């Protein structure tokens, strides 16, 4: 007995497989990116941390009664955490710039092009030997193109829960890379004339009533069109309603503050906890990561190309660059548009229009994710 239990002290190092070691290294890289590169730190730090914990041997921390297992059951398995985060995001979102230029909403639909094209690409890859993806898995990879963490996690968890870690990591890592991914695509697709288009600032003021009614109507319309999108759009718009209502500020600040912060931490840890070496380190994961990057590019392509279409149809009044903000990635994508526009014409202020397209992209991501999920659940 004595020798046995002495040996038990070395059990953990002995159980440290190469897969676990690699995953710990990946966790360290994610934390490095979070701290040193400031890549979505509030999510990548907890995810990386969770990945390290999940791969330290024999701790039992991801089992159903372990720390990460409890967090997972409390809010990931039932998709509670991404929905709670959405309440906070809604409370922080101002749809004013979009309501001043309603037609920008279409850019938010175009910016989801990456979802479908990536989905199709995965189905094509599935035809290759040695690579196999189910329809549900393909859809889960495609949803990275929503470029919206909570949507990707919500849809991914419904369709392919075993890929949740890879999807979340792709979604949040590339989100931070948006300033690097987008500009080349935007430059390649637009002409100098197009990039210099100035867009006058609408002087329209939005009444409080319109602002309050908007989120409610959005919920009803979207839920009737796509019932599976209802929880996503409802929580996003609940936050926005609390923001615009003006009479429930203590709920609003709770949503933006404690609910969002606590949930973000727990969500990150729990998702990191799903990244177990033996399951994560497969060719499929690499493909997810590669295609996730592609989805971001294809989204930008879709947005800018639709921007060019609007440029044509409007007789040159719409700057196609703002299409790039339609992918969502709020508010980074809007800032990139502003910066790139100014690069070609210092006095060009595209920010408000880009913000409109950007919040449209947020709506578009949720709607596209929900519609996609509704149809997939009808088929699978």
């Amino acid at each position, binding site marked *: 007995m004595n020798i046995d239990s002495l040996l038990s002290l070395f059990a953990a190092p002995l159980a440290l497989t190469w897969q676990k070691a690699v995953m710990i290294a990946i966790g360290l890289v994610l934390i490095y990116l979070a701290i040193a590169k400031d890549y979505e730190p509030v999510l990548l730090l907890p995810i990386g941390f969770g990945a390290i914990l999940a791969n330290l041997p024999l701790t039992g921390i991801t089992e159903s009664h372990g720390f990460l297992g409890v967090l997972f059951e409390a809010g990931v398995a039932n998709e509670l955490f991404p929905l709670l985060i959405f309440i906070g995001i809604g409370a922080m979102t101002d749809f004013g710039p979009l309501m001043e230029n*309603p037609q920008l*909403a279409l850019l938010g*639909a175009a910016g989801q092009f990456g979802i479908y094209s990536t989905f199709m690409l995965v189905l094509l890859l599935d035809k290759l030997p040695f690579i196999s993806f189910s329809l549900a898995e393909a859809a889960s990879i495609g949803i990275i193109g929503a470029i919206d963490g909570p949507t990707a996690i919500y849809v991914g968890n419904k369709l392919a829960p075993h890929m949740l870690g890879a999807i979340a990591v792709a979604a949040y890592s590339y989100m931070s890379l948006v300033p690097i991914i987008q500009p080349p695509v935007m430059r390649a697709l637009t002409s100098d004339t197009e990039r210099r288009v100035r867009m006058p600032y609408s002087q329209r003021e939005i009444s409080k009533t319109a602002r309050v009614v908007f989120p409610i109507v959005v919920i009803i*319309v979207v839920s009737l069109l796509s019932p599976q999108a209802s929880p996503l759009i409802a929580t996003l718009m609940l936050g926005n309603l609390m923001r615009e209502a003006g009479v429930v500020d203590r709920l609003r600040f709770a949503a933006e503050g404690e609910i969002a912060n606590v949930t973000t931490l727990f969500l990150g840890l729990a998702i990191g906890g799903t990244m177990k070496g033996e399951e994560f380190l497969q060719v499929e994961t690499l493909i997810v990561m590669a295609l996730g990057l592609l989805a971001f590019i294809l989204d930008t392509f879709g947005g800018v190309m639709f921007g060019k279409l609007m440029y044509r149809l409007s007789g040159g009044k719409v700057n196609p660059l703002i299409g790039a903000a339609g992918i969502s990635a709020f508010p980074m994508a809007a800032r990139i548009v502003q910066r790139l526009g100014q690069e070609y014409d210092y006095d060009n202020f595209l920010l408000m229009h880009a913000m409109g397209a950007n919040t449209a992209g947020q709506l578009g991501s949720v709607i596209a994710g929900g519609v*996609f999920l509704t149809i997939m659940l009808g088929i699978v």
Partner: protein
Amino acid sequence: MENTLITGLYVSVISMAVTFIALGILIGVMYALLAIFPDKSKQVAGESDESVAMIEEPEVDEKANQELAVAMAVGMALLEHQGAFDAKDPNLGKLLE
């Protein structure tokens, strides 16, 4: 064999179409809201400082307020220490605003 590809294409086209339709409807919704609930409070600018402050106050959140307080108090203490008070610097007022 090609079945998933066709299904996928079908799913993609429908999804994209519904998404565009949904956002198209929202465009209609927004125009309708703007028409039904026009902004009546066409604010006459520069009437008085107080009125502006009162209107904007609900927008400023608590933390910003606290930070402002900290910033102001610290700023004043530092200025005080440096003897900057006894206002020789005519820009002080602006600085503190």
